[in-house]
């Protein structure tokens, strides 16, 4: 198990707590699979082959074990390698997938990364976001995906300059669109309110403390003493801890290591300063297919040491694409050509496209889906469903979801033959600061709460009744007690 050894080194490198060895992250204890470790890897050739699916080639020999003392910070490691790889290997937006060991990059939406199960879109892979109806959630995802690329690029060019390449960035965007305003409309980072900033500082402190005190975890929390049923809490805590050990602790550890991997965007703000030509290349879709493909290829070659994120916002939007694009030989040829390019540059290239399915017939839609490695489908709720949800989650407006997200294909797993279609398992909600994706569950329409909602004025008369009914229903529905509480206070 060469894997576990590296796991240890990982943690040692980070100021080594003892609690970690033995906890293997879920899905990683496959001996055949090497965990691509960005930090300490030995020879330059080795690091080359580790990228993308290339890592599946037999690299798991001896050389991957790390020489003692190689726990040096990343910046130093960079000097060991040739320039090209140093940028990609120290790229803040590239990390290994916790499941398959391929390198992935973030879509800019943390929850979408989770839905993809790899914590991002694997390099050399393509993703399609479809949307039913005339809503525009897909274009928000496209913008966030683009903005994330810009943020990566600025992380590199601002402050710590890496290597002596012609320009400082580490990421380049190629947008297939003639609408150049797209660049100016990208959302900026979410800064949060003053309160939030304070809170985050405090929580930072707390988390630091808890890491230091990891060994002292045995000290009894006060609530064990406070309650008679403390043992139950204790059990629950232990359970939780076990779960954490399996799931979150490790992902958290990794998250800490890849702290610049995900960012949160405020869709009401604009990224400042607006991205320049050196950060985004626009290619008009109304050029001949071969010209488009050649241009994409040239740009990728010119940006020879950068992560290249190709974006097709609102593919086949009739305002942008001429009618002949709806013939298979044009649209499918373009995507096939792009797929080929992304696969050729699989160590530093991804493709992200969005499309409204309303304008596609079944044939075109299926031919498109076929050529992408990952496909998700957004199905926004109709008006009456939204009203229903708003009524039910009256007291928790941030629980109102905007639609369902269906997974049709997952990168790596689907092409391997695994059945990964997940229909109606996820729901999404677009907020100002986040595009959230959560497990979908049908909310319970409590008769009580709905009658409350309709006639708030009659609450006074219902007081007694309400107490009783809420008691009876106390664990039937999470919203019921809350509603009751409000009305009692009222």
């Amino acid at each position, binding site marked *: 198990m060469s894997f576990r050894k590296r796991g240890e080194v990982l943690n040692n490198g980070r100021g080594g707590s003892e609690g970690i060895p033995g906890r293997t992250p879920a899905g990683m204890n*496959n001996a*055949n699979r090497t965990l691509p470790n960005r930090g300490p890897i030995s020879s330059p050739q080795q690091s080359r082959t580790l990228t993308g*699916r*290339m890592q*599946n*080639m*037999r690299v798991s020999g001896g050389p991957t074990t790390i020489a003692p003392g190689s726990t040096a910070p990343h910046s130093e490691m960079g000097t060991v390698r040739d320039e090209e790889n140093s940028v990609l290997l120290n790229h803040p937006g590239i990390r290994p997938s916790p499941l398959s060991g391929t390198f992935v990059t973030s879509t800019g939406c943390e929850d979408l990364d989770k839905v993809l199960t790899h914590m991002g879109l694997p390099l050399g892979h393509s993703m399609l976001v479809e949307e039913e109806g005339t809503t525009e959630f897909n274009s928000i995802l496209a913008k966030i995906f683009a903005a994330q690329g810009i943020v990566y690029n600025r992380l590199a060019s601002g402050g710590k300059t890496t290597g002596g390449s012609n320009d400082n960035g580490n990421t380049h965007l190629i947008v297939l669109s003639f609408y150049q305003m797209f660049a100016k409309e990208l959302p900026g980072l979410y800064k949060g309110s003053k309160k939030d900033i304070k809170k985050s500082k405090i929580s930072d402190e707390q988390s630091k403390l808890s890491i230091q005190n990891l060994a002292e975890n045995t000290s009894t929390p006060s609530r064990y003493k406070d309650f008679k049923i403390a043992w139950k809490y204790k059990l629950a805590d232990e359970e939780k801890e076990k779960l954490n050990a399996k799931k979150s602790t490790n992902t958290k550890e990794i998250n800490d290591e890849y702290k610049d991997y995900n960012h949160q965007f405020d869709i009401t703000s604009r990224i400042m300063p607006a991205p320049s030509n050196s950060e985004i290349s626009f290619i008009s879709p109304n050029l*001949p*297919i*071969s010209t488009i*493909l*050649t241009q994409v290829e040239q740009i990728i070659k010119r940006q020879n040491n950068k992560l290249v994120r190709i974006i097709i916002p609102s593919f086949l939007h009739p305002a942008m694409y001429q009618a002949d694009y709806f*013939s*298979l*030989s044009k649209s*499918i*040829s*373009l995507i*096939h*050509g792009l*797929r*080929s390019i992304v*696969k*050729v540059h*699989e160590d530093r290239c991804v493709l992200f496209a969005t499309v409204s399915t309303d304008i596609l*017939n*079944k*044939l075109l839609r*299926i*031919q498109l*889906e*076929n*050529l992408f490695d990952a*496909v998700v489908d957004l199905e926004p709720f109709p008006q009456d469903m939204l009203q229903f949800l708003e009524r039910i989650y009256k007291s928790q407006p941030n629980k109102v979801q905007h639609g369902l997200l269906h997974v*049709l*294909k997952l990168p790596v797993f*689907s*092409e*391997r*033959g*695994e*059945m*990964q*279609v*997940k*229909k109606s398992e996820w729901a999404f909600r677009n907020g100002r600061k986040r595009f959230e994706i959560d497990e979908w569950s049908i909310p319970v329409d409590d008769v009580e709460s709905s009658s409350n909602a309709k006639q708030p004025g009659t609450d006074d008369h219902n007081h007694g009744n309400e107490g009783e009914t809420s008691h009876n229903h106390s664990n039937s529905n999470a919203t019921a007690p809350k509603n009751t509480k409000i009305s009692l206070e009222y």
Partner: protein
Amino acid sequence: MTTPQRQDFILFSDQSVMPSELRAVTVEPKHHLFLITSTMATQPLWLINALVETCISGGPFSLNGPSVSLKANSNSLTTIASLVHEEIFYHNALRKLKVNANGYQILDVLTDFVLKNNDKPRDKVLDELLERFPTDVQSTIVLEQPELLLSLIRGLTADELNKKFILPLMKKCKLLIVASSIDLFQDNENEPLDSNNNDVQEFTKFVTSLIYNSIVVMNLRSLDTGRSKDVTGSLMISRGGQSTNSPLSVHVVENEYLYLTQRDSTRLFYR
């Protein structure tokens, strides 16, 4: 829950996946077609691999487990050509199965296909593509998603694709294995397929012709009940249009398996 018993993958009445007749040298060359139909949800990589493995190593060891009784077919080459996957994809998959790399070659029909062939006359594209395949009447050719050519080559009809590519390709080898995607024809309850659409007709025609030409059809699909943790989908083996016209002395054994694909391994079992 106990794990159901693993079942062996067999296609023919002599308990084999490829009967020895299919590998024997004949005076008059014979040409056969196996068809795999699949969907996005249940992609056929593992099945293609198992068939390639059978051609090269003698049996589908990745599915059935090792066996010594089967002899490898050393003297014929297997060519794998895909319109959706690049060369390294198959290399990696077959390397994991420890398939002898000298036994196969991979033709990458994905990379730069559009760039090279956009605006060329249809016949020329098909001729050039055909040229890339070796002519060896003992060999096996695996072809993934040839129907994509209907989209990629402007104006190409199913008839032309069949006559100018599939049939000539069959003549170049002994066994052609075509893996075709049939997503288009699924779930027509919610979103009916416009059967008057010319493109739809060409796709329908192409798949139908493949079934007419095949001895055996292997269909991969997910369960009607949706995703489940212990079943990936079902593999249905049924007779193709040529099964009643086959010169082989063995016949196709119709069967329905359930299968579970996890990571890199697949297991077949019965309901």
